[in-house]
Protein backbone atom coordinates (compact mmCIF):
# COMPACT_ATOMS: atom_id res chain seq x y z
CA UNK A 1 0.00 0.00 0.00
CA UNK A 2 2.95 2.31 0.54
CA UNK A 3 3.88 2.45 -3.13
CA UNK A 4 0.40 3.53 -4.37
CA UNK A 5 0.28 6.17 -1.63
CA UNK A 6 3.70 7.43 -2.62
CA UNK A 7 2.64 7.56 -6.26
CA UNK A 8 -0.49 9.54 -5.33
CA UNK A 9 1.73 11.88 -3.29
CA UNK A 10 4.07 12.43 -6.20
CA UNK A 11 1.23 12.97 -8.69
CA UNK A 12 -0.55 15.41 -6.34
CA UNK A 13 2.62 17.40 -5.71
CA UNK A 14 3.45 17.51 -9.40
CA UNK A 15 -0.01 18.70 -10.40
CA UNK A 16 -0.13 21.27 -7.57
CA UNK A 17 3.21 22.72 -8.69
CA UNK A 18 2.08 22.71 -12.31
CA UNK A 19 -1.24 24.39 -11.46
CA UNK A 20 0.30 27.08 -9.25
CA UNK A 21 3.16 27.85 -11.64
CA UNK A 22 0.78 28.02 -14.60
CA UNK A 23 -1.75 30.19 -12.80
CA UNK A 24 0.81 32.59 -11.34
CA UNK A 25 2.70 32.95 -14.62
CA UNK A 26 -0.57 33.48 -16.55
CA UNK A 27 -1.66 36.23 -14.18
CA UNK A 28 1.82 37.74 -13.97
CA UNK A 29 2.22 37.82 -17.75
CA UNK A 30 -0.80 40.15 -18.02
CA UNK A 31 1.47 43.00 -16.98
CA UNK A 32 3.35 42.53 -20.25
CA UNK A 33 0.21 42.80 -22.35
CA UNK A 34 -0.62 46.31 -23.47
CA UNK A 35 -4.05 47.37 -24.63
CA UNK A 36 -4.26 50.81 -26.10
CA UNK A 37 -7.70 52.18 -26.89
CA UNK A 38 -7.20 55.30 -28.95
CA UNK A 39 -9.54 58.26 -29.29
CA UNK A 40 -12.85 57.14 -30.88
CA UNK A 41 -13.59 58.75 -34.22
CA UNK A 42 -16.92 59.52 -35.84
CA UNK A 43 -17.40 59.96 -39.54
CA UNK A 44 -20.06 59.54 -42.19
CA UNK A 45 -20.12 56.60 -44.54
CA UNK A 46 -21.00 56.77 -48.24
CA UNK A 47 -24.53 55.63 -47.42
CA UNK A 48 -24.86 58.51 -44.94
CA UNK A 49 -24.58 56.56 -41.75
CA UNK A 50 -22.50 57.50 -38.74
CA UNK A 51 -19.45 55.32 -38.40
CA UNK A 52 -17.87 55.00 -34.94
CA UNK A 53 -14.30 53.78 -35.14
CA UNK A 54 -12.28 52.77 -32.11
CA UNK A 55 -8.68 51.90 -32.97
CA UNK A 56 -7.28 49.24 -30.63
CA UNK A 57 -3.62 48.32 -30.34
CA UNK A 58 -2.72 45.08 -28.58
CA UNK A 59 0.88 44.25 -27.80
CA UNK A 60 1.15 40.77 -26.32
CA UNK A 61 4.56 40.45 -24.72
CA UNK A 62 3.30 37.95 -22.13
CA UNK A 63 4.23 34.30 -21.83
CA UNK A 64 1.01 32.96 -23.28
CA UNK A 65 -1.40 33.50 -26.15
CA UNK A 66 -4.57 35.43 -25.54
CA UNK A 67 -7.70 33.77 -26.84
CA UNK A 68 -11.18 34.98 -27.76
CA UNK A 69 -10.45 38.71 -27.54
CA UNK A 70 -13.79 40.41 -27.87
CA UNK A 71 -14.89 44.04 -27.76
CA UNK A 72 -18.60 44.79 -27.64
CA UNK A 73 -20.14 48.24 -27.65
CA UNK A 74 -23.76 48.99 -27.06
CA UNK A 75 -25.10 52.51 -27.47
CA UNK A 76 -28.43 53.33 -25.93
CA UNK A 77 -30.41 56.41 -25.10
CA UNK A 78 -31.19 57.59 -21.59
CA UNK A 79 -34.34 55.50 -21.51
CA UNK A 80 -32.29 52.37 -22.19
CA UNK A 81 -33.45 51.92 -25.80
CA UNK A 82 -30.60 50.29 -27.73
CA UNK A 83 -29.71 52.43 -30.73
CA UNK A 84 -26.89 50.33 -32.08
CA UNK A 85 -24.39 47.70 -31.07
CA UNK A 86 -21.21 46.35 -32.55
CA UNK A 87 -18.72 43.64 -31.82
CA UNK A 88 -15.12 42.90 -32.78
CA UNK A 89 -13.69 39.45 -32.26
CA UNK A 90 -10.07 38.31 -32.55
CA UNK A 91 -9.83 34.53 -32.10
CA UNK A 92 -6.22 34.46 -30.96
CA UNK A 93 -3.43 36.91 -30.19
CA UNK A 94 -0.23 34.95 -30.19
CA UNK A 95 2.53 35.79 -27.74
CA UNK A 96 4.99 38.32 -29.07
CA UNK A 97 2.47 39.64 -31.60
CA UNK A 98 1.46 43.26 -32.07
CA UNK A 99 -2.06 43.66 -33.42
CA UNK A 100 -3.88 46.75 -34.54
CA UNK A 101 -7.62 46.35 -34.87
CA UNK A 102 -10.47 48.76 -35.45
CA UNK A 103 -13.73 48.34 -33.65
CA UNK A 104 -16.39 49.70 -35.99
CA UNK A 105 -20.02 50.44 -35.48
CA UNK A 106 -22.55 52.11 -37.73
CA UNK A 107 -25.62 54.02 -36.79
CA UNK A 108 -28.25 55.58 -39.04
CA UNK A 109 -29.47 58.95 -37.87
CA UNK A 110 -32.96 57.77 -38.73
CA UNK A 111 -32.50 55.29 -35.86
CA UNK A 112 -32.53 58.30 -33.60
CA UNK A 113 -35.71 59.71 -34.94
CA UNK A 114 -37.87 57.99 -32.38
CA UNK A 115 -37.35 61.12 -30.44
CA UNK A 116 -36.95 64.57 -31.98
CA UNK A 117 -34.73 65.34 -29.00
CA UNK A 118 -31.72 64.13 -30.95
CA UNK A 119 -32.36 66.61 -33.77
CA UNK A 120 -33.14 69.66 -31.67
CA UNK A 121 -31.56 69.17 -28.26
CA UNK A 122 -28.08 68.28 -27.12
CA UNK A 123 -28.23 65.16 -25.04
CA UNK A 124 -26.10 62.28 -23.90
CA UNK A 125 -25.83 58.73 -25.16
CA UNK A 126 -25.02 55.85 -22.87
CA UNK A 127 -22.18 53.65 -24.08
CA UNK A 128 -21.76 50.20 -22.54
CA UNK A 129 -18.33 48.83 -23.40
CA UNK A 130 -17.30 45.24 -22.71
CA UNK A 131 -13.86 43.77 -23.31
CA UNK A 132 -13.41 40.03 -22.85
CA UNK A 133 -10.53 37.63 -23.38
CA UNK A 134 -9.13 34.33 -22.28
CA UNK A 135 -5.76 34.66 -20.55
CA UNK A 136 -3.47 31.84 -21.66
CA UNK A 137 -6.53 30.73 -23.66
CA UNK A 138 -8.12 29.22 -20.52
CA UNK A 139 -8.86 31.92 -17.93
CA UNK A 140 -11.82 34.06 -19.03
CA UNK A 141 -11.58 37.70 -17.99
CA UNK A 142 -14.14 40.38 -18.74
CA UNK A 143 -14.03 44.10 -18.10
CA UNK A 144 -17.03 46.33 -18.64
CA UNK A 145 -17.80 49.99 -18.16
CA UNK A 146 -20.55 52.50 -18.78
CA UNK A 147 -19.77 55.96 -20.08
CA UNK A 148 -21.88 58.85 -21.26
CA UNK A 149 -20.94 60.57 -24.49
CA UNK A 150 -22.34 63.92 -25.53
CA UNK A 151 -24.60 64.10 -28.54
CA UNK A 152 -24.70 67.41 -30.40
CA UNK A 153 -28.02 68.18 -32.07
CA UNK A 154 -27.75 69.18 -35.74
CA UNK A 155 -30.73 71.56 -35.42
CA UNK A 156 -30.11 72.89 -31.93
CA UNK A 157 -32.28 75.82 -30.90
CA UNK A 158 -34.24 75.73 -34.18
CA UNK A 159 -36.55 78.73 -34.40
CA UNK A 160 -38.63 80.66 -36.91
CA UNK A 161 -38.57 84.42 -36.35
CA UNK A 162 -41.32 87.00 -36.48
CA UNK A 163 -43.07 87.22 -39.86
CA UNK A 164 -42.47 90.43 -41.73
CA UNK A 165 -44.94 91.21 -44.48
CA UNK A 166 -44.13 93.34 -47.52
CA UNK A 167 -46.37 94.07 -50.49
CA UNK A 168 -45.85 91.76 -53.46
CA UNK A 169 -48.81 92.56 -55.73
CA UNK A 170 -52.49 93.39 -55.34
CA UNK A 171 -53.47 89.91 -54.23
CA UNK A 172 -50.36 88.64 -52.47
CA UNK A 173 -47.89 89.72 -49.83
CA UNK A 174 -44.39 88.47 -49.23
CA UNK A 175 -43.86 86.91 -45.81
CA UNK A 176 -40.23 87.01 -44.75
CA UNK A 177 -39.39 84.43 -42.10
CA UNK A 178 -36.09 84.10 -40.33
CA UNK A 179 -34.81 80.54 -39.90
CA UNK A 180 -32.11 79.99 -37.31
CA UNK A 181 -30.43 77.09 -35.56
CA UNK A 182 -27.01 75.94 -34.42
CA UNK A 183 -25.38 72.85 -35.84
CA UNK A 184 -23.87 71.15 -32.80
CA UNK A 185 -23.39 67.84 -34.65
CA UNK A 186 -19.99 66.50 -35.60
CA UNK A 187 -20.90 66.65 -39.30
CA UNK A 188 -21.72 69.44 -41.75
CA UNK A 189 -25.40 69.67 -42.36
CA UNK A 190 -26.71 70.08 -45.89
CA UNK A 191 -30.23 69.56 -47.15
CA UNK A 192 -33.49 71.36 -47.48
CA UNK A 193 -36.25 72.76 -45.33
CA UNK A 194 -39.82 72.87 -46.51
CA UNK A 195 -42.20 75.19 -44.72
CA UNK A 196 -45.98 75.07 -44.98
CA UNK A 197 -47.90 78.02 -43.61
CA UNK A 198 -51.39 77.50 -42.20
CA UNK A 199 -53.74 80.21 -41.03
CA UNK A 200 -55.89 80.13 -37.89
CA UNK A 201 -58.61 78.08 -39.64
CA UNK A 202 -56.07 75.40 -40.53
CA UNK A 203 -56.04 76.18 -44.26
CA UNK A 204 -52.74 75.85 -46.09
CA UNK A 205 -52.06 79.29 -47.46
CA UNK A 206 -48.59 78.83 -48.91
CA UNK A 207 -45.51 76.72 -48.88
CA UNK A 208 -41.88 77.08 -49.80
CA UNK A 209 -38.58 75.35 -49.72
CA UNK A 210 -35.03 76.42 -49.12
CA UNK A 211 -31.67 74.72 -49.01
CA UNK A 212 -29.56 74.75 -45.88
CA UNK A 213 -25.87 74.42 -45.46
CA UNK A 214 -24.46 74.62 -41.96
CA UNK A 215 -20.93 73.69 -41.04
CA UNK A 216 -20.40 71.81 -37.80
CA UNK A 217 -20.42 73.97 -34.69
CA UNK A 218 -21.70 77.02 -36.52
CA UNK A 219 -24.85 79.07 -36.33
CA UNK A 220 -27.22 79.11 -39.29
CA UNK A 221 -29.37 82.14 -39.93
CA UNK A 222 -31.18 82.77 -43.20
CA UNK A 223 -34.43 84.28 -44.42
CA UNK A 224 -37.13 82.57 -46.40
CA UNK A 225 -39.66 84.37 -48.50
CA UNK A 226 -43.20 83.11 -49.08
CA UNK A 227 -45.88 84.68 -51.24
CA UNK A 228 -49.05 84.62 -49.20
CA UNK A 229 -52.55 85.46 -50.54
CA UNK A 230 -53.83 88.48 -48.65
CA UNK A 231 -57.24 86.88 -48.11
CA UNK A 232 -55.71 83.95 -46.28
CA UNK A 233 -53.63 85.91 -43.80
CA UNK A 234 -54.73 85.70 -40.19
CA UNK A 235 -53.06 86.98 -37.05
CA UNK A 236 -52.45 83.53 -35.69
CA UNK A 237 -51.65 80.23 -37.31
CA UNK A 238 -48.92 77.70 -37.53
CA UNK A 239 -46.04 76.48 -39.67
CA UNK A 240 -45.25 72.91 -40.51
CA UNK A 241 -41.54 72.43 -41.06
CA UNK A 242 -40.18 69.40 -42.93
CA UNK A 243 -36.49 68.56 -42.93
CA UNK A 244 -34.76 66.56 -45.58
CA UNK A 245 -31.01 65.91 -45.51
CA UNK A 246 -28.88 63.05 -46.81
CA UNK A 247 -28.49 61.88 -43.19
CA UNK A 248 -32.05 61.98 -42.03
CA UNK A 249 -35.51 62.70 -43.29
CA UNK A 250 -38.12 63.72 -40.79
CA UNK A 251 -41.44 62.04 -41.56
CA UNK A 252 -43.29 64.02 -38.94
CA UNK A 253 -43.25 67.79 -39.38
CA UNK A 254 -42.19 70.21 -36.70
CA UNK A 255 -45.16 72.40 -35.85
CA UNK A 256 -44.28 76.02 -34.98
CA UNK A 257 -47.14 78.37 -34.07
CA UNK A 258 -47.03 82.06 -34.98
CA UNK A 259 -48.95 85.09 -33.82
Amino acid sequence: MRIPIRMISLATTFFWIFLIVFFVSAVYSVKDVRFDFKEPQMELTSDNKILFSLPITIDNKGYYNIGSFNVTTEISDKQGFIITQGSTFIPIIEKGRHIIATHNMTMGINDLQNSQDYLFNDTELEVHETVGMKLAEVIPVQASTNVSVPWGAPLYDFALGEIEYTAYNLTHMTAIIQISFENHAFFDLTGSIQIRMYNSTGILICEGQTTIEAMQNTQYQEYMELNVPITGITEKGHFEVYFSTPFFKAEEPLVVPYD
Partner: protein
Amino acid sequence: MTEEKKDFKKRLQGFTFKALKATIKGVLFYGIYFVLSMFFAPISEMVSGFQQTIEIFVMVYIFLMIVGELTAGTIFHHFFSAAKALFVILYLIFALKGGIVGVTVQNVNLVVDLRLFLVVAMLLGLLGFAKSVLQAINFLNEKAEHVNF
Protein backbone atom coordinates in the same frame (compact mmCIF):
# COMPACT_ATOMS: atom_id res chain seq x y z
CA MET B 1 16.56 4.43 35.83
CA THR B 2 19.21 4.47 33.11
CA GLU B 3 16.80 2.89 30.65
CA GLU B 4 14.16 5.50 31.52
CA LYS B 5 16.73 8.21 30.89
CA LYS B 6 17.69 6.66 27.58
CA ASP B 7 14.02 6.42 26.60
CA PHE B 8 13.46 10.06 27.50
CA LYS B 9 16.56 11.07 25.53
CA LYS B 10 15.32 9.09 22.54
CA ARG B 11 11.90 10.71 22.74
CA LEU B 12 13.45 14.16 23.05
CA GLN B 13 15.66 13.47 20.04
CA GLY B 14 12.62 12.29 18.08
CA PHE B 15 10.61 15.34 19.06
CA THR B 16 13.52 17.66 18.24
CA PHE B 17 13.85 16.02 14.84
CA LYS B 18 10.10 16.42 14.21
CA ALA B 19 10.20 20.05 15.34
CA LEU B 20 13.18 20.71 13.10
CA LYS B 21 11.43 19.07 10.15
CA ALA B 22 8.25 21.05 10.84
CA THR B 23 10.26 24.28 11.09
CA ILE B 24 12.09 23.61 7.83
CA LYS B 25 8.81 22.76 6.06
CA GLY B 26 7.14 25.85 7.48
CA VAL B 27 10.00 28.12 6.48
CA LEU B 28 10.15 26.56 3.04
CA PHE B 29 6.41 27.01 2.54
CA TYR B 30 6.61 30.61 3.74
CA GLY B 31 9.54 31.18 1.38
CA ILE B 32 7.45 29.91 -1.56
CA TYR B 33 4.60 32.18 -0.46
CA PHE B 34 7.02 35.11 -0.19
CA VAL B 35 8.29 34.56 -3.75
CA LEU B 36 4.77 34.10 -5.16
CA SER B 37 3.46 37.16 -3.32
CA MET B 38 5.86 39.30 -5.36
CA PHE B 39 4.14 38.08 -8.52
CA PHE B 40 0.74 38.83 -7.02
CA ALA B 41 1.76 42.32 -5.87
CA PRO B 42 -0.05 44.12 -8.74
CA ILE B 43 -3.27 42.24 -7.89
CA SER B 44 -2.91 43.08 -4.19
CA GLU B 45 -2.75 46.76 -5.09
CA MET B 46 -5.90 46.50 -7.17
CA VAL B 47 -8.01 44.14 -5.04
CA SER B 48 -8.56 45.14 -1.44
CA GLY B 49 -8.48 42.18 0.93
CA PHE B 50 -6.58 39.93 -1.47
CA GLN B 51 -3.36 40.06 0.57
CA GLN B 52 -5.28 39.38 3.78
CA THR B 53 -7.07 36.37 2.25
CA ILE B 54 -3.79 34.83 1.11
CA GLU B 55 -2.10 35.54 4.45
CA ILE B 56 -4.88 33.85 6.44
CA PHE B 57 -4.63 30.85 4.12
CA VAL B 58 -0.86 30.63 4.55
CA MET B 59 -1.09 31.01 8.33
CA VAL B 60 -3.68 28.25 8.78
CA TYR B 61 -1.91 25.99 6.27
CA ILE B 62 1.46 26.39 8.00
CA PHE B 63 -0.18 25.79 11.38
CA LEU B 64 -1.78 22.55 10.16
CA MET B 65 1.49 21.55 8.53
CA ILE B 66 3.52 22.11 11.73
CA VAL B 67 0.97 20.36 13.96
CA GLY B 68 0.82 17.49 11.43
CA GLU B 69 4.58 17.14 11.48
CA LEU B 70 4.77 17.26 15.26
CA THR B 71 2.22 14.47 15.49
CA ALA B 72 4.06 12.32 12.91
CA GLY B 73 4.05 8.65 13.73
CA THR B 74 0.58 8.86 15.26
CA ILE B 75 -2.89 8.62 13.76
CA PHE B 76 -3.31 12.36 14.40
CA HIS B 77 -0.74 13.08 11.73
CA HIS B 78 -3.16 11.66 9.14
CA PHE B 79 -6.08 13.50 10.69
CA PHE B 80 -4.22 16.77 10.29
CA SER B 81 -3.24 15.84 6.73
CA ALA B 82 -6.89 15.20 5.90
CA ALA B 83 -7.89 18.42 7.65
CA LYS B 84 -5.29 20.29 5.60
CA ALA B 85 -6.67 18.89 2.35
CA LEU B 86 -10.25 19.74 3.33
CA PHE B 87 -9.18 23.21 4.45
CA VAL B 88 -7.60 23.87 1.03
CA ILE B 89 -10.81 22.82 -0.77
CA LEU B 90 -13.17 24.79 1.44
CA TYR B 91 -10.97 27.88 1.63
CA LEU B 92 -10.63 28.00 -2.15
CA ILE B 93 -14.40 27.73 -2.60
CA PHE B 94 -15.07 30.56 -0.14
CA ALA B 95 -12.15 32.79 -1.15
CA LEU B 96 -12.88 32.48 -4.87
CA LYS B 97 -16.65 32.88 -4.30
CA GLY B 98 -17.50 29.80 -6.33
CA GLY B 99 -15.04 30.65 -9.09
CA ILE B 100 -16.42 33.97 -10.34
CA VAL B 101 -14.42 36.84 -8.89
CA GLY B 102 -15.57 40.40 -9.51
CA VAL B 103 -13.74 43.62 -8.77
CA THR B 104 -14.73 47.21 -9.43
CA VAL B 105 -11.89 49.61 -10.13
CA GLN B 106 -13.06 53.19 -10.63
CA ASN B 107 -15.82 52.80 -13.24
CA VAL B 108 -14.65 49.45 -14.61
CA ASN B 109 -16.13 46.13 -13.53
CA LEU B 110 -13.63 43.33 -13.83
CA VAL B 111 -14.85 39.73 -13.74
CA VAL B 112 -12.46 36.78 -13.72
CA ASP B 113 -13.84 33.30 -14.27
CA LEU B 114 -11.69 30.94 -12.20
CA ARG B 115 -14.07 27.99 -12.22
CA LEU B 116 -11.72 25.80 -14.23
CA PHE B 117 -8.86 26.58 -11.85
CA LEU B 118 -11.14 25.94 -8.88
CA VAL B 119 -12.32 22.58 -10.23
CA VAL B 120 -8.75 21.40 -10.85
CA ALA B 121 -7.65 22.64 -7.40
CA MET B 122 -10.63 20.91 -5.77
CA LEU B 123 -9.84 17.66 -7.55
CA LEU B 124 -6.24 17.89 -6.38
CA GLY B 125 -7.47 18.67 -2.87
CA LEU B 126 -9.75 15.62 -2.98
CA LEU B 127 -6.82 13.52 -4.17
CA GLY B 128 -4.81 14.80 -1.19
CA PHE B 129 -7.71 13.96 1.09
CA ALA B 130 -7.99 10.46 -0.37
CA LYS B 131 -4.24 10.04 0.12
CA SER B 132 -4.56 11.02 3.79
CA VAL B 133 -7.40 8.53 4.29
CA LEU B 134 -5.34 5.80 2.61
CA GLN B 135 -2.35 6.69 4.77
CA ALA B 136 -4.51 6.50 7.89
CA ILE B 137 -5.83 3.09 6.83
CA ASN B 138 -2.32 1.95 6.06
CA PHE B 139 -1.08 3.26 9.40
CA LEU B 140 -3.77 1.37 11.31
CA ASN B 141 -3.07 -1.71 9.20
CA GLU B 142 0.61 -1.67 10.05
CA LYS B 143 -0.15 -1.09 13.73
CA ALA B 144 -2.55 -4.04 13.71
CA GLU B 145 0.14 -6.23 12.15
CA HIS B 146 2.53 -5.47 14.99
CA VAL B 147 0.10 -6.48 17.73
CA ASN B 148 1.19 -9.75 19.20
CA PHE B 149 -1.70 -11.91 20.37
